[in-house]
């Protein structure tokens, strides 16, 4: 028996948001549409809405993060939730038993939602499977597997600028192999029916059978960029630059870096995206990152609305499930009485 997808509750509704794989276009579009409603909140004088009032959201981060954690914190606060930041960046020896123990402690503190970031692929699935009923889990990034809210904020940004995904050619450059962002972006783009998704990079940065994700592999960036509507860079971790993965940051930039000359090969209105933080002069030229086609800062802004959407949807689904079960219970009691 294959394991059931823990993202869905017994009514088939999203109760956790841990992976874009398993969600269809309609479910992803619902998240994007909901985020659209929250996008306006940011421009109001009073930026919060009361959807999560009285709820406690715990940011449980086993890995360092400033950007993602801050964005989640702000999103939770704009939904009027109380926010608890739990920093668990300790030794790399944090193993299963202690992870489960940590989970139980945080459950005992009666939080309503966990935002989890962990260095191991599958950690969010593990937590979602073992968390006490009634607690919602959002994956803030697990190993090299998934960073679904980043994927959705990228989709939100693309949709705002480009509309229909079916017409788009998206080029993702760099370290696909070790990138959870790339996996979530690809999963979302494929689910939303993107016209063409190309990945570019040396073979050392490509995972095995990358084509099975639904992308086309291009070893040559100059060919890949022709006709591109969206160009997504990925962060190249420092440790990859010092290993046998790539010879040097300089060579990477010369052959895979997004320079102004290369950008000119794409469509004139191509979007330049990057999940950040950027390594200027490695993945991307400074004047491209700061240039008119760049939406890198916009991505960060929309990240708040998208995370508000995700949190409110899963919390709403759980509230609805609880209400249904309670009324079923009451009905059963009155029938038996």
């Amino acid at each position, binding site marked *: 028996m294959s*394991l059931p997808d823990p993202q869905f509750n017994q009514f088939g509704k999203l109760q956790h948001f841990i992976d874009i794989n398993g969600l269809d276009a309609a479910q992803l579009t619902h998240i994007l549409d909901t985020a659209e409603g929250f996008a306006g909140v940011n421009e109001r004088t009073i930026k919060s809405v009361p959807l999560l009032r009285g709820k406690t959201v715990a940011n449980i981060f086993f890995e360092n993060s400033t950007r993602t954690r801050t964005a989640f914190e702000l999103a939770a606060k704009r939904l009027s939730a109380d926010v608890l930041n739990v920093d668990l960046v300790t030794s790399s020896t944090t193993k*299963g038993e202690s992870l489960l123990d940590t989970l139980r402690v945080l459950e005992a503190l009666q939080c309503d939602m966990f935002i989890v970031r962990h260095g191991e*692929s599958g950690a969010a699935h593990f937590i979602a499977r073992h968390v006490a009923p009634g607690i919602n889990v959002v994956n803030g990034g697990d*190993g090299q*597997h998934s960073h679904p809210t980043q994927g959705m904020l990228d989709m939100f940004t693309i949709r705002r600028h480009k509309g229909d995904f079916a017409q788009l050619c998206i080029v993702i450059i760099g370290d696909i192999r070790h990138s959870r962002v790339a996996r979530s972006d690809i999963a979302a783009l494929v689910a939303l029916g993107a016209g063409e998704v190309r990945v570019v990079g040396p073979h050392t940065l490509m*995972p095995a*059978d990358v084509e099975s994700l639904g992308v086309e592999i291009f070893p040559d960036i100059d060919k890949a960029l022709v006709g591109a509507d969206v160009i997504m860079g990925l962060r190249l971790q420092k440790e990859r630059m010092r290993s046998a993965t790539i010879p040097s940051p300089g060579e990477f930039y010369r052959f895979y870096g997004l320079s102004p000359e290369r950008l000119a090969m794409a469509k004139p209105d191509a979007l330049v995206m990057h999940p950040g933080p950027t390594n200027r002069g490695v993945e991307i030229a400074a004047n491209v990152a700061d240039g008119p086609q760049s939406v890198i800062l916009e991505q960060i802004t929309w990240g708040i609305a998208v995370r508000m959407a995700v949190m409110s949807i899963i919390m709403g689904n759980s509230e609805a499930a609880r209400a249904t079960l309670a009324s079923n219970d009451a009905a059963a009691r009155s029938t038996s009485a």
Partner: protein
Amino acid sequence: MTTLLLTGIRLQHEQADTRHDLLVENGVITHIETAGVVNPQALPGISDSDEQQLASTTGEPDIITIQTNGLLVLPGFTDLYGRLREPGFSRKGTLASETAAALAGGFTTVLCAPDTQPAIDTPATVELIRQRAADAPGARVIPMAALTVGLDGKQLSELATLKAVGCLAAGQADRPIDNANVLYSAMQYAASVDLPLIMTAHDSQLAANGCAHAGAMATRLGLPGIPVAAESVALARLIELCRETGCRLHISRVSSARAVGMIERAKQDGLLVTADVGIGHLYFTDAQLAGFDSRYHSAVPFRSANDRQALRDGIRRGIIDAICSDHAPHDADASLAPFPDTESGLAVYDHFLPLWLALKPLLELSDEQHLNVVTRHPNAILCDELAPGAILKVGQRADIILIDPDAELTDLSVAATDGTTQGAACAGHGVSAGCNTPLIGIRNLNQCTDEAIPLTGRVHMAIVGGELRRSDY
């Protein structure tokens, strides 16, 4: 020693409706006759004619007659790779629990993997295992010597000494020797003391921190991959060093199509190379890891459907000589972690027989081929000449199982012959202490894989060296 008379048995190579009697005296099969020919009362030393048990003056039964009502009698299987967990990991399983589970799987002999704690690298550890195994009424245990001290891949164990105390093979378990010079030396030394090596082809640097086959599934799940090259590169090194040293090399738990091809060529070259595959690898692929299902986390990873097909062809064509269990029982905590942090291995014994039975129609094997891979071939690899081959014969050691191949799968836990209940730790799922198997409650493999393969069959009785050690009949 008790004399055993099995009446009304069915033999695989005979017609389904003919029945035979089989007599075991002093641990050896002495008669196989058409039913009714063997007369227990005519046997020497038998004075009473009680039909079930004839008690001697000491109160011990001299002869046990078992009416089997047509149970199929097969030679007991030999497992070339079972982790019995004792000493060192008795929270995962004990020699008592796992040798009882081995019998439930059809194995009357188990080559015990050396990755115990301490590793099997001294006569003292061999003696400890031997004693604990003797106290447990399960399968016969043959210790596999750790090729290097502590399996550290640095210093050779006392292989000649370990052979003298009963280790019939040596190996490195799941801890490959990284240093080629040490490996070369180890293979030379093993050749000079004529000890077969049971080696897994695994390059730990190419595998890095991988925990799944480097393929589409690992890519989707973001799991660090173990490329096929981690097996083929290590295998090439083992084969070339075998060519150089002339040692007897058995490749344990082959996983890829490429490895099957390399072993075929090594055999064509006349090298003393044999190979086995874990039975799980003949059914499961990396597709089973979907949703981070750590029940399929195996040290030797489940690879693609093409690899699975090549392994099956390897069995059919005789390139792969044997099928082992690769049994790895774990405690519940071992699986309570994100996938990469879970401990690898599946508890296989409780389901080995049904999985083995299903192979015959699946691979269109002859009876002899089907039995050879779990009897004659592994016994030949261990140079165990007394053990039965594919066909039970008079004069062979009485390692026998009595099975019902069509029995529906149920709870395999039975009262052991000493009266204690085995497998209680696993909440009644099976005999092994390990619950880490995806097959609990599975009646057809289409419940967990892409193929509809019904699973049936149960070992009702197992006789080890003439001693009845499992009976639920």
